[in-house]
């Protein structure tokens, strides 16, 4: 169904442990085959808009973006803003996956057009369950406008 170089998930997460746990959980559901993991906001923007290190990259957009808010270089909210204000990327579902439980972050994210906001549970079992549910929902259940 999906071509080999089609990116399904873009994971932007600076904490390698959290990233590894998330990827592991998605793998268990066979959802991590076409996953790209980037470690900061600047890299994420370069990747999405084919610029900087990713200049000349074939324009293929991820199906969903899992975005942490606390990111080095460019903050998660800034990344979200750029994604949602560009015609080419604004239809990609963005799920904020963060440790922050602050009202301000939640409100700001929704104002910028986030599609979902999820707080990372501390317990691994719950975290794993949640990540796989997210993957299943957004990639399998949810319908997005075709590319």
């Amino acid at each position, binding site marked *: 169904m999906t071509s080999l170089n089609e990116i399904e998930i873009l994971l932007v997460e600076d904490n390698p442990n959290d990233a590894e*746990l998330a990827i592991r959980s998605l793998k268990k559901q066979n959802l991590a085959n076409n996953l790209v993991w980037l470690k900061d906001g600047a890299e994420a923007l370069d990747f999405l808009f084919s610029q900087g290190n990713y200049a000349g990259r074939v324009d293929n957009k991820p199906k969903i973006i899992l975005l942490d808010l606390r990111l080095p270089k460019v903050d998660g909210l800034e990344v979200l803003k750029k994604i949602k204000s560009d015609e080419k990327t604004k239809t990609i579902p963005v799920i904020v996956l963060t440790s922050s*439980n602050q009202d301000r972050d939640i409100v700001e994210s929704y104002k910028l057009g986030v599609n979902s906001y999820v707080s990372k*549970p501390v*317990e*691994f079992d719950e975290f794993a369950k949640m990540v796989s549910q997210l993957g299943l929902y957004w990639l399998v259940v949810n319908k997005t406008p075709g590319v």
Partner: protein
Amino acid sequence: MSIRLKLIIIFLAIALIPIIFVSMITFHNYTNSIEDTRFSQMRYLTVIKAERIEAYFNNLKADIEIAANSKGTEFLDNLFKQLESSINLNAIMIIDKKGKITYEKNSHSHRIDLLVSEEIHKKELEAGKKGVHFSDIYSDNNSTSGFSMMITAPILDSRKVLSGVVAFEVDMAPIYKLIQDVTGLGETGETLIGKKFGNEVIYLNPLRNDPQTTLKKRVTIGGSVGRPIQEASTGKKGFGEYFDYRGVKVIAAWQYIPSLDWGVVAKIDYREAFADIENLKKLVILILCIVIFLSGIMAISLAQSVSAPIKKLTEGAEIIGSGNLDYKVGTCMKDEIGTLSRSFDKMTGDLKKITASRDELDTEITERKKAEEELKALNKELEAFTYSVSHDLRSPLRAIDGFSKILMEEYNDKLNDEGRRQFNIISANIKRMGELIDDLLELSRLGRKEITCSSINLKDILFSVINELKSNIIKRNIDFQIKEIPEAAVDRVLIKQVFINLLTNALKFTSHKNNAIIEIGGNVEGNKAIYYIKDNGVGFDMQYAHKLFGIFQRLHGQEEFEGTGIGLAIVKRIINKHGGEVWAQGKVNEGATFYFSLPK
């Protein structure tokens, strides 16, 4: 208006109004009495003069009747001699029916023939045939007074048939003397007689103020001049204030003499009659002026003595009001104002002390505010710190949990039972640490959250919380008893958290009971509503009651009852944020009751 002016006016009013009032009444009474006296005097003189005039003419009438009845000239000669000396009789004569003079006797200078020759006297003689007749007064140069009157009477024979007329000519001197007697009439008073002729009244006697115009002076009836004589001559009697023949205002009395058809008037100038009143008026005004002057001086000095200390006090108050608290009014007066001044000085002293302590207080308040702000800032910092610490703790904890789980998954078969037991201990502690972090985060989130209150039916919230909790409890027999729950203005989300925490506690501490009873109720006391949640659980020792709502404070061991020790701290924080209080009562093994109040 200044107090001084007010006092002067009040004093003058109090002093002068009664004096003026009494003066006016006295003056009025005196005027009335003088008027009465004057009028009685005039009336008395009028009556006396009229009586005397009538008496004179009655005597004359008697005399002429005697003459008419007399026989022989000798008798008439004697009568003439007698009357000439007593009443200035000028002449006696007798005329027969044919007009011939049959007897005449003149005073030494009088010429009777002139009398008879005048036309006017013929008329009198004619009138004398019918009875005794008095002629009008006429001018007569031979008379002492210059005026005379003729009296005529009929002479009847033995058969009562008219045989002639007897005539007397009398000098007016005695009458004029009587009339012109001004005894009791002062400088301007007089009596006078007049007679009406047509629509005029002629004055018959020499007037005091106009002696040369006898029988020439006249006034018109109806005019305002000589009103008293007009009244008298037209047959009236009375008294009053009028204008006399000169047009001068007079006090007058008058009456009519019918036998002579004369009017008699007694009068005196108003000015003279009431000279006493005028004098009295002047005296009263003088006295009033003196009283006003003296009262004025007294009022001013009194006002001065009252207002000066007040002024001094006012000035003192202004000086003190402008900030000079060291100023003293200082007076040694013994009266109320003196007392007031001393009290005022004392008050100023007290005020100074109070101001000083107020300044201290101000400084203290400022310092306190500063400290409070510092505390607030510190608190905020602490909360931010708590938040970031607990937030940052989550990631490593998740990693520990995650990788230990992975380890367990991948290497489970390589561990023995002891290894697995120890691994489970690690897992349990990770879980507990997660809970602690989550609760801490919740508590710090509450600290920063603004509450939005609205009037809410707490019973509904309570039911929904109980239903949620019931679904998590299996195999337990719990009796929820819900009593009266008053409404209150609260933040729906936060108050729900309060019920969750308190009911969770109640369930937790009744977990060993077979028949757990949890009673929830409330009532309104004054301006606040008080709610309680009572259980029949393990209870607590009241000596630790103050520790219940502290953060991380637990009265039971972790093995006995699980928990982080933050739930009640959250309850306290939420209730405090609403302006309410929390407290608890309990006894070991006899249950606990948690109370909270909310403003109505």
